[in-house]
């Protein structure tokens, strides 16, 4: 591992710890870092405080863990999509996969009365699968020459899926208030039991992604080259589809559609390590967790006593980043293996 990567890894890890502490120490309730730490370490005078227990167990701890799971899932899904479509601008949010997952979830809510976390997961996975299938199909059809066109296709898909989802919701009077906030992407409603269901599946997606890395790295050279090296490209694509669908569904069912975090994380990771996908995934995961956690802390802290939806904050930060990246054209140099 080159020195720069090593330094980034260490610094990123340190920053993650700092952000974890910040995330546990900020938010509704008067408790600071000291009392939360005391509670978590089991100091008797803090454990006896019922209010503190409530704040940590039902508010701050679930939301912090959710930020880690959602950030990592979206970042890995974005990295996988970037490799599979050979497009450094790809991510589930920009390409309309998130919107597909939301549509799936809305259909489950309205027509099948889904209420459990498992149900949310299943339906958002079905929606994400649909979105991924269409996006990968269009990606293959458009070819490698048009990374910007794929983004436009993603906008079109997002419009179709989002239009349908909104239509269904508004025509059946599901609680608009709740959905509105969730639909902007928010971690404020995270619960530990939902996390316990989702986290193992996210880990499964992560493992699947890690297993596919070597083949995907070789497939960057083109399908025929990869086939000559003995790689079953269709099986690898199927694996990518499964992993990316699973990870997107995990993120959506926890936090709603959070855009741009996957794009930012995966793009930064690709800048740092353009070739070896396993290392790229490692950095992507780290960056995803960092970005989402930082954005969530900011969302709680910026407009006190109000709370911003974290997805909105990320869009406000991510959109200018996308503008700069597209304008400078740096993404074109990442199209092929250097």
């Amino acid at each position: 591992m080159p020195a720069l990567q090593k330094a980034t890894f260490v610094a990123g890890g340190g920053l993650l710890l700092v952000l974890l502490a910040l995330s546990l120490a900020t938010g509704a309730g008067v408790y600071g870092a000291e009392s939360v730490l005391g509670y978590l370490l089991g100091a008797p005078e803090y454990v006896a405080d019922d209010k503190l227990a409530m704040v940590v167990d039902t508010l701050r701890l679930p939301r912090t863990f959710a930020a880690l799971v959602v950030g990592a899932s979206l970042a890995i899904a974005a990295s996988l999509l970037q490799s599979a479509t050979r497009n450094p601008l790809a991510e589930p949010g920009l390409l309309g996969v998130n919107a597909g997952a939301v549509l799936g979830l809305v259909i489950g809510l309205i027509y099948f009365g889904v209420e459990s976390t498992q149900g949310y997961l299943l339906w958002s996975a079905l929606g994400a699968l649909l979105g991924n299938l269409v996006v990968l199909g269009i990606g293959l059809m458009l070819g490698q020459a048009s990374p910007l066109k794929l983004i436009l296709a993603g906008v079109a898909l997002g419009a179709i899926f989002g239009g349908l989802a909104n239509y269904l919701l508004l025509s059946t009077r599901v609680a608009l208030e709740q959905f509105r906030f969730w639909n902007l992407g928010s971690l404020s409603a995270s619960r530990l039991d939902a996390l316990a269901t989702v986290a193992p599946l996210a880990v499964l997606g992560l493992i699947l992604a890690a297993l596919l890395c070597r083949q995907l790295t070789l497939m960057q050279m083109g399908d025929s080259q990869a086939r000559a090296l003995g790689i079953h490209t269709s099986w690898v694509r199927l694996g990518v589809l499964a992993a990316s669908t699973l990870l997107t569904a995990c993120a959506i069912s926890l936090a709603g559609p959070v855009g741009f975090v996957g794009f930012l994380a995966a793009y930064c990771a690709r800048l740092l390590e353009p070739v070896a996908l396993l290392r790229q995934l490692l950095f992507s995961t780290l960056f995803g967790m960092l970005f989402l956690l930082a954005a969530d802390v900011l969302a709680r802290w910026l407009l006190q006593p109000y709370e911003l939806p974290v997805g909105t904050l990320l869009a406000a930060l991510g959109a200018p980043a996308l503008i700069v990246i597209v304008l400078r054209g740096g993404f074109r140099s990442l199209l092929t293996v250097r």
Partner: protein
Amino acid sequence: MPPIANPSGVWTLRIGGLSLLLHRRNWLMFGLLALLLAGLAVLAISLGSGNLGVRDVIATLAGRGSKLQEIMVFKLRLPRVAAAIVAGLAMGMAGCLIQTLVRNRLATPDMIGVNEGASLAVVAFALYLTLGNWPWWASPLGALLAAAALFALCRRPGEQGYLFIVIGIALSELLGAIGDFAMSTQPLVHLGSIYLWTMGHFAGISYQTVNPIAVLLALLCPLLALVNRPLALLRFGDSTAQNLGIRVPAIQLGVLALAILVAALGTAIGGPVVFIAMAAPILASWLARDNLAPIWLSALCGAVLLLGSDTLVRVLAQPEEIPTGIMTRLLGGILLLGLLIKDRRGAD
């Protein structure tokens, strides 16, 4: 006297030494579309709760209806229909102007953030200043700022193709996020109608909003007619247009300013209804002879498309109120995907 050449497919109107060419097909299409729009308007007024047949509507419009029918037509249904028509006309014109100027079918005010800027300004004024009336006049301000930002980022949009559009989309996302920011600090009970408006909604619009915008648009129309011809010549490229005696930078700037103003006025009525400005000029150029920028045809197409979508969503969703913008998003998304796939061989 030399014989006067008569081009085919054209009516010529001669007044002394002047002759005016009227493209037969354009005018036929214009008439047909106007008829279609009128029919659609009558149908839209008659549809909905209460017994109101098409014949009753026509009688009431002619001034021979009962008191109840008059209230239903003039107070309840007509404002919404008029709002959809005026907004559609504006969106069709604005879309045609920018598409022709940038030479890109996807470059429409709703894709490049101009509409989002307009609606953000209106929402900000509606949220933070209690004015009583709907602050529609704020929209050109926001639209101009958004367009200024966009053109500061992309100096030569005509040559940047998809890049320009993607930058515009990112700008829209940014402006939309800022609008969500502003709205997320307010409870939904206060927001209600504003939230629906940001998705493109035509219910409950009064003449107080529609009338001044319609008057302003009518005042802009002579200017549009004036730039129509130089704009059509600009399509041949800057240097050709220059050689034909057109002051290219001045015309470009003028057309852009007009387009932004018209787009902002269109957005101010029913909110940012997406994809109408993209679909209308495409439909118009299918219908028209391909020699001019079909501004007027495009305007009529926009009105037909928007009124059609609004009526469709009203009938489909009864008794709920669903924003019209959701329907146009759905249909427009399919159109955009189709355009991209059709154009798949070209690189960006």
